[in-house]
């Protein structure tokens, strides 16, 4: 009984997710683009959630990893003609190294709470300023990828193919995050998030696991960066190294429910299309009004469901079960 319920509760979200995710394949191509953007954010949110949610370390430096993925694959492709399919692994490796280094720098000593956020924000700003001034990286103007038009070089004629690529990436990331969540790594990371002292006491090597979380999260983010760069066919510091995108990733995850498996999926899945819809319907009328509404929406969700939509949903379901339980008890 319990086993079957567990299984259905693990499978149902997947079915729902795939239904939503696959729908654009049957729609016009305009939808495909929005779906690609949405899935890209799902991917990035899942990646950030590993460190920011599950491990509870408020990292604002993910723009560095995004940039590592985007720039490494792009530069390798432009200068050495290496396919981004290979370049993305180089980008991920670089990102992982940067991530581990940042984690090691920040977590060697017990710093005051939220210091990690500050270290990462400062490193992100330094990275942005550096990338914006280095000629080899295209400086502020960025780099445009040469049109090669072959799938072997990560370029496709149809947007649907890009869509399939990011969908596969998301499924891999989601499966990875689900698997991690319940294995030793996930359990240890959640223990660290909940209570670092107690985690020490039960033998969790806290520093090592924080570094591990950063490595995985950074590498995943870099894969997203590679996809994004190849999809747009150009890289540029504001998009790929600015902290704006990190703030977006954080807010989308938080609204969905950070620290949960499905939160970083639900947040962008609902809000990215909603944001785009707002922009389409209001963006042309008064500057900023759609973002204002969007911002108010975010604040309202954070205010009334600090644990995100997933948390609110869980509470609602518990309340419903409780009420049903009471009703059943009454009838007996």
């Amino acid at each position, binding site marked *: 009984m319990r086993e079957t319920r567990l299984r259905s509760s693990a499978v149902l979200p997947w079915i729902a997710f795939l239904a939503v995710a696959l729908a654009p394949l049957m729609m*016009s*191509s*305009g*939808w495909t*683009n*929005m779906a690609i*953007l949405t899935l890209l954010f799902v991917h990035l949110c899942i990646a950030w959630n590993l460190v920011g949610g599950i491990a509870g370390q408020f990292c604002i430096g993910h723009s560095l990893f995004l940039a590592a993925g985007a720039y490494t694959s792009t530069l390798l492709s432009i200068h050495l003609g290496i396919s981004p399919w290979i370049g993305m692994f180089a980008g991920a490796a670089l990102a992982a190294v940067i991530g581990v280094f940042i984690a090691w720098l920040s977590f060697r000593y017990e710093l005051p709470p939220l210091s990690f956020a500050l270290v990462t924000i400062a490193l992100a700003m330094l990275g942005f*300023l550096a990338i*914006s*001034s280095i*000629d080899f990286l295209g*400086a*502020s*103007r*960025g780099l*445009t*990828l040469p*049109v090669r038009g072959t799938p072997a070089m990560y370029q496709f*004629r149809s*947007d649907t193919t890009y869509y399939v690529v990011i969908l596969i990436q998301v499924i891999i990331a989601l499966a990875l995050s689900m698997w991690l969540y319940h294995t030793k790594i996930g359990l240890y990371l959640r223990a660290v998030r909940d209570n670092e002292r107690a985690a020490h006491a039960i033998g969790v090597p806290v520093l090592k696991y924080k570094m591990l979380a950063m490595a995985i999260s950074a590498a995943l983010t870099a894969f997203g960066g590679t996809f994004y760069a190849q999809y*747009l*066919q*150009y890289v*540029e510091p*504001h*998009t790929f190294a600015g902290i704006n995108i990190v703030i977006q990733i954080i807010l989308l995850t938080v609204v969905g429910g950070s620290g949960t498996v499905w939160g970083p999926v639900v947040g962008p899945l609902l809000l990215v299309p909603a944001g785009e819809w707002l*922009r*389409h*319907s*209001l*963006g*042309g*009328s*008064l*500057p*900023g*009004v*759609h*973002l204002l509404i969007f911002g108010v929406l975010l604040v309202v969700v954070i205010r009334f469901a600090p644990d995100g939509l997933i948390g609110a949903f869980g509470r609602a379901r518990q309340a419903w079960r409780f009420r049903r339980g009471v009703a059943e008890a009454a009838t007996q």
Partner: protein
Amino acid sequence: MSRLSRLAAVGALALVTGVMSVAPSFAKDIKIGVLMPRTGRYAETGLSVVRGIEMVVKNTNDAGGIKSLGGGKINLVIADNGSDPTKTSLEARRLMSEEKVSFILGPYSTPEAQAFMPVADRYQVGGVGLQTTLIPTTPYFSTISISAEGFGKAYADAVKWLISKGAKINTVAITYANNDYGQVVSKTAAAALAAQGIKVLESIPVEPSVKDMTPIVLRVKSLAPDAVISVVYFQDGVLLHKARFNLGYTSPIWLGGSAGFSDDKLWGTLGKEVAEKTLTSSFGLAFYSADGKLPGLKDALQKGSAAYPDKVIDQSFMFGVQAARFLVQALENAGTDDPVKVNAAFRGLKFKAGDPAIVLPIIPGDVHYAEDGTLAGTSAIFVQWKDGVKHTVYPEAVASAKPIIEGVK
């Protein structure tokens, strides 16, 4: 108060247009995308551009539409790119694949154009960049503005001209906004100046988000150059002039641009006191000046202030007008709404000097599109301010006033 009522009006308008866009369109109408920033950094500029475009389209439609298409009307599909390259790419895809537009007016800035070009290339729908200072890498993208390289050269040319007017310039210092535009302009200018035998003492990068320009001006001052070139935007330009004023450092010949020296609102923002001390003796690089002698410009100014009596008719507005007038002519020439043909017609545009379609003073003579999609026959202009009004002083062919040069009578 007026903001609120405007909000309500705009909201209502948005609703109405939203409903209208569902209605079936008539066969001969041409769908044209407008891809401009309406939010974000360049929002104000983008809105002004769109006003210019809307005015031309309305005039054209009122006057019987596109004649070669049997009087087909132009339908604008206006999209917001949030001043963001990524959104530009996504919106461009939407306009091309979903809205099936025949051509896109926009995007606005260089990074946006860079995101736009691969999309245009893939869907084979043309676009025209307004303030894009790059050289297009696809046949489906053209520009109206001068390239950053062109601006860099323009500064060097202006220095040469100043020397010919009797200015003593042996050394130059450059400050530039540390972004795509500033980097390219300063590099080209430095190279061109060096080729002219003028010593470039230093090129100083400045973050466009700088909060105080005093240290930069101090650095320039310590270099003691004969002339200074400052590639600045509006905000850093304002800070630059304030710092110059505060430090009393107004002696060298100062060239700069663009918005930070020639934006229509600059005088008012600086205030008379500062502006008189700094702007009157400076040479501001500009794309546009209302004192241009072109007949098309006078016409557009008149119609613009009639259509938008409570708005400033500025450079951005005129860029919108220019892009739209080019497009109208291209559609007439193409006689079809097929995107590939419309784009070819756009690239094939040719105008004689004085054609009423020409409104921008940077296009003084005959003009056509070069192979690379840049407008051949453009040249930057330099303005000087006097009592809050800009006067074109260079090139002399379009000048409306004599230059005032420090140290030259």
